[in-house]
């Protein structure tokens, strides 16, 4: 079996809200699963299931209250592994005064790439996401779709081993969506891993090999896509996927996983 690229071990996250921090929200409860290398892993669940919190904990944007996260084989406390990860935020806010080229240069430097590496990658990346002719334009003039393309280029700037995409197709037109699919398929063929957080069954069905479904901060399913849809094919069709997910999205939250797949 391929080595796990990400491993969550009994991860819990509790937020204390309010002025006196008395209101408690359990965003994650005892989450444990592994993501093997070279696959496209789907992270699904209804709103407020804890998907984004899990992604943030993985990327050290927030810290888990309990449990351990191993990222590329090392504890998540070690930030060095973040240099090999790309992240596309669900609704990113960019410095609007930067041009597309300056934007990638800036984020490339923050990914600890050398000036030369960044200079080599920027034209290729802009070409890949179809923004080469807008490289010198200020981001402020970009449409939402163009910003999504640029955000994708930002996530790819360090040619990451692991790509984390949080709602990547939100606001994307058909051609941008097709482009994203092509990029993910190509990277998968190169043996690279992607974690996809999405509400789009079409994207999940077309892209993912393996899934984890969260509800109420708990894993309610972890397994291969085919196990969920009950199909022999890896590529699940939207209807059967939706049908399979419906009871998980609506059903009661139990103390432990209720649909455990073989992949765990």
């Amino acid at each position, binding site marked *: 079996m391929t080595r796990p690229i990400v491993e969550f071990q009994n991860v819990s996250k509790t937020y204390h809200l309010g002025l006196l921090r008395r209101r408690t929200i359990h965003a994650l409860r005892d989450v444990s699963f592994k993501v093997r290398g070279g696959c496209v892993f789907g992270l699904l669940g209804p709103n407020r299931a804890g998907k984004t919190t899990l992604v*943030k904990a993985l990327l050290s*944007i927030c*810290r888990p209250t309990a449990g351990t996260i191993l990222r590329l084989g090392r504890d998540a406390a070690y930030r*060095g592994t973040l240099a090999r990860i790309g992240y596309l935020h669900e609704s*990113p806010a960019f410095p609007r005064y*930067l041009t597309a080229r300056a934007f990638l240069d800036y984020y490339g*430097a923050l990914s*600890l790439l050398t000036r030369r590496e960044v200079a080599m990658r920027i034209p290729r990346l802009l070409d890949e996401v179809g923004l080469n002719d807008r490289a010198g334009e200020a981001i402020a003039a970009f449409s939402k779709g163009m910003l999504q393309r640029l955000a994708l280029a930002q996530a790819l700037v360090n040619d990451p081993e692991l790509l984390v995409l949080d709602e990547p197709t939100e606001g994307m037109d058909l051609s941008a969506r097709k482009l994203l699919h092509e990029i993910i398929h190509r990277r998968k063929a190169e043996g690279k891993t992607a974690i996809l957080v999405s509400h789009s069954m079409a994207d999940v069905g077309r892209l993912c090999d393996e899934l984890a479904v969260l509800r109420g901060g708990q894993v309610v399913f972890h397994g291969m896509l085919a196990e969920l849809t009950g199909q022999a094919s890896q590529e699940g069709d939207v209807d059967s996927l939706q049908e399979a997910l419906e009871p998980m999205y609506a059903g009661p939250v139990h103390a432990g996983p209720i649909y455990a797949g073989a992949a765990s």
Partner: protein
Amino acid sequence: MNPRTLLPVIFRLVKDTFRQSMASGICWLLMGLSTICILGCLSASVNGPQSLAAAGENADFLPRFDREAQDAHKLKQSGVTVADGTLSLAFGAVRVAVARDVRATVHFFQLILAAGVADTLGLLLTLIWTAGFLPGFLAPQAVAVLLAKPVPRWGLLAGKYIGVLAFVLAQAVYFVGGTWLALALRTGVWDAAYLLSIPLLLLQFAVFFGFSLLLAVCFRSTVVCVFGSIAFWGICWAINFGRHAVMAAEAMAPCGKFSTLLVRLADISYWILPKPVDLGCLAFDALGAQTHFRPILEHNGGLSLGLSVLTSLLFTVYVLIAAARQFAKMDY
């Protein structure tokens, strides 16, 4: 993370701050105000005796209101030697009588520019205008992608802080350097003491922007940063000035007018907090404008400008460490 890896990141964050300041118009606004002052200096000229002081003598040019100069004619008639100089502004449209020699008049003019325009008005305006830089940078949607990068959190904060300081340094160099050059060209007084205002301005700003940084990390609100840092500056200024006033009053007439508790409290607060008045005194000192007030305090061990700078810096370092620690443990 080793410094060799971190330095290019800091450099990009500094560059980004300059871009941000240009895009927001703050850079051009401050440069515009500085240019007006520089043009004002270019329109100024000073007539009067070259020097009234003997060699090695410090000619104190305070008090600021030259009643003696206005009465120069009467004084001359009564046989008193009067330095009847003139400071003219706007190419002679405005003429002010001064009882100083040329050098002291230029120093007086520079003191107004350093302590009044730059150190008070400039500092407050810059604090207000740059207060939005950090909350914008730390907004959850903007910072989440940055936090997913391998740069340590304190490195991001340090880069932005240094970026704003570099921007203020550039503005201070333009303002002080420009006005100094303009006055020197017009008056022939090339004393470089005024240039000391550049590091002093930067130090003052670094102290109060450090506090603004802590507020930005804790509250992520521009309004809190603006009002918080201005209120903090006001408190520090009042404590600094109040403590010196109490000390001076006690030294001149030790009649126990102030309770021991009040004196002790003022003293403790003074030593803990930054000292904007003392830092301003350094500019007075450099321009030779301080021979009345300071000795009274110095003779009583109440003032040491070196210690004032050191303790203000220590406070800033403490605030920056607190901000970095808070930022390191925050969830976004």
